């Protein structure tokens, strides 16, 4: 599974779907499911932490602990980058095109034939045609 940085960040942000993320990540950990993220995940999550009152060192400790269990931070290979470029090109002038950042996560999921879980409804609306993407609110359906 591929997790968006906005999903992981909900672990330390007080948002209506905070508990949803706790349950998702607990489930992933208990089932020993590998979670893949592109290297920009680290910078995005830490940037959010830096802008929040939550101690950034604690967030980094959280990420490293997750790495020692099921989280794998990966560099995108050529095929995945090409797929991300492909996703970026697919949009509409009015509604916009997926950003390369969003597409990187999504392409990583496609390359590994797994689901990209995001809370960003806009990206799902723009790129659901490529498959392998689900909204955080639908994560339980992914396991069924």
């Amino acid at each position: 599974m591929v997790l968006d940085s906005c999903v992981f960040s909900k672990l330390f942000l007080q948002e209506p779907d905070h508990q949803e993320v706790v349950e998702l990540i607990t489930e992933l950990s208990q089932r020993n499911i590998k979670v893949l993220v592109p290297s920009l995940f680290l910078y995005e999550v830490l940037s959010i932490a830096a802008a929040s009152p939550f101690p950034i060192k604690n967030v980094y400790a959280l990420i490293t602990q997750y790495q020692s269990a099921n989280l794998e931070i990966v560099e995108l290979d050529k095929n995945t980058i090409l797929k991300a470029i492909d996703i970026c090109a697919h949009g509409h002038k009015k509604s916009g095109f997926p950003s390369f950042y969003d597409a990187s996560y999504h392409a990583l999921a496609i390359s590994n034939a797994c689901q990209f879980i995001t809370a960003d409804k806009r990206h799902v609306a723009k790129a659901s045609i490529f498959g392998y993407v689900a909204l955080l609110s639908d994560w339980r359906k992914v396991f069924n």
Partner: protein
Amino acid sequence: MVSLIDVNRDDMKTTNQTEQSKVRTTLYLTPENKQGLDRIPRGQKTALMNRAIANALKELDKKENAKQFIEMINQIKPVKMDLSSEEIIRHLRADKEIPSTDLQDNNE
């Protein structure tokens, strides 16, 4: 599955003749594992057993680390931000400045 029952230190040479510290031990194997191991050529069994044990121990470590990670996330007291994480990420990805909430506790 294998179980370790006795360990006696002993220096031996590896099958590829490189010097390496090894430990002589006795293992009780299930009949299935013994049968499977009998198919492996002489000289490769030790390497295979070590690989299998190392992988099994790594998995155990990962399980333990996952348990600790779950404990960590259950102890988190989430903080409020003016924007949702989706909006913050959108700002970041659009290279906009993130309006910070309160940074005073940020470097505890």
